[in-house]
């Protein structure tokens, strides 16, 4: 049992942390969020140069990491900087699915992802799916050598900027079946693809995507027809591990800002940190964040175990990230008071991200129910 990072990983963590602390500002981030692209192309290129994207891929796929703790280390730092460059959409989701299922020629795109020259998105969730990852109504019908895709995809992260979409579609079965799901690599500007891109309340970008008689060749099929579920579930687990880690970084910043504020803001002639009503709540915030961190360590440490072990630990981590993220966000705003209600003050932006993380790939209620179902499988 060892709770320290390898020297190599620690160096990587430090270099990302330094890069973000030295060059990444909230103002620039928020300005980039208002552009059509939704993030800074320049920063993305710099992250690529730093090796931050490559850290999410294994050596055999051309990266130099890809282990669960590489994901947690990187995303924690991204959370600290409130980074909105599309690591999740492009590297973890899109890149992750291609790494899991892609044939050699399909995997060539990973090199471009790592270099920062290709944007991906996972067009999967649909208007009625909520968090149900096996709910897909979009259809894939065989046609000649290829397929015709029809359907609608909802809140697709980075969907507008993506050069290449990984589209899920149903080859067979009913709406919620795990069996019968297929994945296709579809160019973002393929005929029949229409995209409505918008910004999210926490400064990311997503898109509603319609697929109308989109014709794709057989070479766009990722993995075997109808057999994509196992990879989808695993990649979403990685996404949740990343999000729970990102939440820890954001929580710690919100916590530190709040402690600092309690030490400087005066009311009734004293710094408000002297008030026990606030001290005790802050102590709760502090210890709950340690709990969230432990649950992420559990999830990363068990990620390569059995499916049930992995998924239970991931659901636990995402549950705690959701619950504690909300606690930290709400307490940070409340203890700051009015100043935290302003756009100008940073803590509100961290609070928004923390609360929205709960809306990505399953909220607290969803993951508790899922954990219960998985417990029965484990018993």
């Amino acid at each position, binding site marked *: 049992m060892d709770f320290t990072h390898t020297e190599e990983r620690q160096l990587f963590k430090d270099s990302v942390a330094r890069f973000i602390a030295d060059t990444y500002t909230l103002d620039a981030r928020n300005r980039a969020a208002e552009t059509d692209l939704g993030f800074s192309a320049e920063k993305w290129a710099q992250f690529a140069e730093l090796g931050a994207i490559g850290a999410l891929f294994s050596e055999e796929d051309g990266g130099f990491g890809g282990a669960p*703790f590489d994901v947690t280390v990187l995303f924690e730092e991204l959370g600290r900087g409130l980074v909105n460059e599309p690591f999740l959409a492009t590297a973890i989701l899109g890149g992750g699915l291609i790494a899991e299922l892609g044939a050699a020629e399909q995997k060539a795109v990973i090199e471009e992802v790592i270099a920062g020259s290709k944007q991906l998105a996972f067009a999967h969730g649909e208007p009625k799916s909520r968090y149900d990852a096996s709910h897909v109504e979009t259809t894939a019908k065989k046609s000649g050598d290829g397929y015709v895709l029809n359907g609608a995809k909802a809140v697709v992260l980075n969907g507008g900027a993506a050069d290449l979409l990984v589209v899920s579609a149903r080859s067979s079965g009913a709406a919620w079946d795990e069996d019968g799901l297929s994945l296709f690599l579809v160019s973002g500007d393929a005929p029949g693809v229409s995209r409505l891109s918008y910004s999210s309340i926490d400064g990311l970008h997503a898109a509603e995507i319609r697929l109308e008689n989109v014709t794709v060749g057989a070479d766009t099929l990722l993995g075997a027809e109808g057999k994509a579920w196992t990879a989808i579930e695993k990649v979403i687990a990685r996404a949740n591990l990343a999000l729970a880690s990102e939440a820890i970084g954001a929580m710690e910043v919100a916590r530190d800002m709040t402690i600092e504020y309690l030490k400087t803001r005066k009311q009734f002639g004293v710094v408000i940190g002297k008030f026990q009503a606030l001290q005790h709540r802050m102590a709760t915030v502090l210890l709950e964040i340690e709990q969230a961190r432990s649950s992420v360590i559990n999830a990363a440490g068990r990620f390569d175990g059995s499916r049930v072990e992995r998924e239970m630990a991931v659901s636990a981590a995402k549950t705690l990230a959701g619950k504690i993220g909300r606690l930290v966000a709400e307490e940070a705003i409340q203890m700051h008071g009015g100043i935290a209600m302003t756009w100008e003050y940073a803590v509100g932006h961290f609070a928004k991200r923390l609360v929205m993380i709960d809306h990505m790939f399953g909220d607290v209620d969803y993951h508790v129910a899922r954990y219960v179902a998985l417990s029965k499988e484990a018993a």
Partner: protein
Amino acid sequence: MDLSFSPQDLAFQAEVRAFLKAELSPQLADKVRHNKTLTKEDMVGWHATLNKRGWLAQDWPKQYGGADWTPVQQQIFDDEASAAGAPRIIPFGLKMLAPVLMKFGSEAQKAHYLPRILDGTDWWCQGYSEPGAGSDLASLKTRAVRDGDHYVINGQKTWTTLGQYADMIFCLVRTGTEGKPQEGISFILVDMKSPGITIRPIILLEGTHEVNEVFFDNVRVPAENLIGEENKGWTYAKYLLTHERTNIAGVGASKAALAEVKRIAKAETVRGVPLADDPYFAARVAQVEMELDALSTTNLRVLSSPDAAVSAGSISSMLKIKGTEIRQSINDLARRAIGPYAMPFVSEALEEGYNGEPVGPEYALGVAPDYFNNRKITIFGGSNEIQRGIISKMVMGL
């Protein structure tokens, strides 16, 4: 990062399991699991069993006859022993007094007392709290006045856990009134058979005799029983609080208690369906399990990193707060799980040798008493409010 046990730890785990299988009687395990009353013989006997194996003083150095286990080994033992239904180790001599003796006691004190803790000659109890000194412990008033080569003690201690069995009591007493209240406190060892000591039971709200009041009326104590220097007792007591980190979170006991909740929830039925399958109940169990799983890792993180970023005292505070809150939510789940059978109060059925007519399922008898008894855990050892105050000051500098 590596969450797996080393081969040595796995071997140790196997050794612990084999030991428990061979040495822990099913009758005793049943008592513990169903929260029945343990006799003094049960507790003393389990200590003796552990001592015979050299496993009683788990964190003591070898030179004093300890096992000198690593924190991970201690956690493994705690998990295994709790799961098997072993009685808890009575901490007063082993975990509370002994570290203070080793650090601040004289050679003569160490040579005399430590072996007697191990072999069970002395059962120790703790004389800290007083009627007027609870969370504000430093306001204690029990006086010790030097008279030749003795101290004469007058005053009253309270909440003395298992003092009814004790041979000795370690006390914080006031020897000075100058300066801050903390500065006039001394740490002294007193024979419970000394003339002038009276002990009176306090019956707790669930009806058990676990704690006592201890009165001191001109009790003469040899001056050689003083630990360290006069008026430095507060430092010694505080050392203990920051030193004692293992097991403060009570992870093993909570895991065992949660496993019992799950067993109950499988046996209880709602319209013929196990309570365990009730989505609302199952969701509550799941959330506590997630918290406990995280706490177990928080605990190991703390134990395995002596140079943790936050100071030792506040880490103990975090573990204490979270550990007790989780334990109480498990008590709450158990109480709800048994439904109306939380109500019967047949305390004699929890005693050894009871052969009256059973009321309700056996697993239900001790549940409500344990729920009420465990309200204490967020109060004692520095209430959770005191702990939050420590975190505010030590970590956040508020």
